[in-house]
């Protein structure tokens, strides 16, 4: 029978199944970071347990770390204690840790693929909801809580119930100026932020097939914002070309053998899904969120909603609250919204292609006088170095942007990069929740090119009409 990639990976990883219990699923790669792991290691210590497979466990510090001078100690004592705790735990339990000084350091979901740790057919977990990102390489990857982090550390497995499957097929050629970020925002707008709850999403269709691997990472990254824990894309030539030569690709097998093994994970033609959704890429315009949930999104040529036109009373209430928090009127053109900050980075859009797309818009321009801060934070130290080698840092700096060290930074503002109350930010991140980027801060989710254009124009503008210099 024809099987989907999810079914294939699931079946290959069930360790034990018995009636009345959740199956035990094997975990091939466990990624950890400083925020969601300390209590898990503490649990191991209390129960006198070891890490079962330290060689399958990799740690990075990303959420708390400063994006300024790395040679100085972390100023915030609580952040410092959390980062130091990760270092100590990794040392005690024998786990490889890419610390702040390591060239392999970066956001956990940027470095997994970049180092070739993430490979097709793997099961991957991390105490972080954006673990869905890794699905772009054909891995079953999802976020877990700290209790489950401890469970995986101790047993290299998880108790898991099988999910339903949803096919999200994206068809047609993506118009110029419309990006992977716009596609995933449009998908969330279409199915809703809880539309994927209980499902694993597989992205299919020619639009997805024609995307670069980095674009696919952006799509899978925001799967959790549609409510689904994991989003996958069947591996193909694009996947294999991306992986070739990366640090952690097995050396004991020939490249041909690896490609042949990886190819087998792809969904069989004609396999079935519990639900299917189709999106026409040709109809997608650049997207901008107006509210406090990623599903509150409109096209750049659209407007904020008119409350009386929303039929569901709870939805109307939510929209009213969101517009109030965002300081926006109903029926307001998206183009009239004026940010005073720009943030380009995160596990959603902090990779080299993202920085290139933003730099292309910025080149030859200056930040609008209204913009008080434009932050560029690469997703990893390697991304930063590659961008510098291409001269992207100079383009940004000449325009008035700040060029920083890698990390999660202002995506969730756990370090010193925080919005002030009332700030309005054009952000390439994944969540526009109240206070996400700082208490009272207002976030508009957009693609890197759209964020850059808003920074130059001083308001959101259609990047399809941009005059590139």
């Amino acid at each position: 029978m024809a099987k989907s990639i999810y079914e294939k990976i699931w079946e290959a990883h069930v360790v034990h199944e018995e009636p009345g219990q959740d199956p035990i699923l094997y975990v091939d790669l466990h990624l950890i970071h400083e925020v969601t792991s300390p209590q898990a290691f503490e649990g191991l210590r209390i129960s006198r347990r070891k890490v079962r497979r330290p060689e399958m466990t990799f740690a990075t510090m990303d959420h708390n770390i400063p994006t300024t001078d790395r040679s100085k100690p972390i100023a915030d004592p609580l952040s410092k204690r959390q980062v130091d705790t990760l270092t100590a735990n990794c040392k005690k339990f024998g786990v490889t840790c890419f610390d702040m000084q390591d060239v392999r350091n970066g956001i956990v979901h940027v470095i997994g693929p970049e180092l070739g740790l993430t490979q097709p057919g793997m099961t991957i977990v991390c105490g972080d909801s954006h673990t869905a990102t890794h699905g772009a390489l054909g891995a079953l990857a999802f976020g877990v809580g700290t209790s489950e982090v401890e469970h995986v550390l101790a047993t290299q497995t998880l108790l898991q119930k099988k999910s339903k499957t949803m096919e999200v097929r994206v068809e047609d050629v993506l118009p110029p100026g419309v990006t992977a970020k716009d596609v995933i925002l449009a998908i969330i707008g279409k199915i809703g932020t809880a539309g994927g709850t209980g499902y694993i999403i597989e992205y299919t269709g020619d639009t997805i097939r024609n995307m670069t691997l980095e674009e696919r990472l952006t799509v899978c990254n925001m799967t959790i914002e549609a409510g689904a824990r994991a989003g996958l894309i069947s591996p193909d030539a694009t996947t294999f070309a991306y992986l070739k030569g990366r640090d952690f690709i097995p050396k004991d097998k020939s490249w041909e053998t690896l490609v042949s093994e990886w190819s087998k994970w792809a969904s069989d033609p004609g396999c079935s899904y519990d639900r299917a959704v189709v999106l026409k890429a040709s109809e997608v315009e650049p997207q901008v969120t107006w509210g406090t949930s990623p599903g509150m999104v409109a096209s750049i040529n659209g407007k904020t909603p008119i409350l009386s036109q929303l039929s569901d009373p709870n939805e109307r209430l939510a929209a009213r609250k969101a517009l109030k928090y965002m300081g926006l009127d109903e029926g307001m053109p998206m183009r009239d919204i004026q940010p005073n900050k720009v943030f380009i980075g995160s596990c959603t859009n902090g990779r080299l292609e993202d920085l290139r797309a933003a730099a292309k818009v910025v080149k030859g321009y200056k930040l609008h006088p209204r913009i008080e801060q434009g932050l560029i934070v690469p997703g990893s130290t390697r991304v930063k170095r590659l961008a510098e080698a291409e001269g992207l840092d100079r383009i940004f700096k000449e325009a008035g942007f700040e060029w920083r060290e890698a990390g999660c930074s202002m995506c969730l503002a756990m370090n010193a990069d925080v919005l002030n109350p009332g700030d309005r930010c054009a952000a390439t991140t994944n969540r526009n929740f109240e206070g996400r980027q700082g208490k009272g801060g207002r976030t508009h989710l957009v693609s890197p090119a759209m964020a850059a254009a808003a920074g130059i124009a001083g308001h959101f503008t259609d990047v399809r009409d941009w005059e590139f210099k």
Partner: protein
Amino acid sequence: MRSFTTLTGIVAPLDSLNVDTDQIIPKQFLKRIERTGYEDFLFYDWRYLEDGTANPDFEMNAPRYRGASILLTRDNFGCGSSREHAPWALDNYGFRCILATSFADIFYNNCFNNGILPILLPPETIERLFREVRAKEGYALTVDLPAQSITCPDTARIPFDIHPFKKECLVNGWDQIGLTLRHEDKIAEYERKRGIA
């Protein structure tokens, strides 16, 4: 893990859709390395005013909801990040049971791993409970997990569904790691077959 069998408690309303984990506990409180002491940070940005005093407009702050152990809310509760600090904060504050029309997947799992019972109820039942909670001060419910039913003060019992294995783990307070390690031989056998040395 702490077990859950029956609970009688005051119900507090949280009338919002898509309450995300950044609202349940904002990120500045995720820097701690402990599992306890999060009670004062729950719903922080909604609960307190700029000067740190209680926000009178936040419904749950009303004295009548003091000591509540059951939280009543709406769609997609707990969406967003995987932070287990969210159920820790709810638990530390005193909530042992959450009633909603739907929950985000990761949050839902995290509740069970912390002895908190999340119950899914139909929209009309949630709507009715919101009305009843607001109409009667001291409104309390009795939740009986083994019987899968909720006893209301004046109206009929409300039955609820729950995954049998999750129920069994919660009723017995089973340590999941201990449960899995009973099958350690099978894990070792799986690793041998895969050539994981």
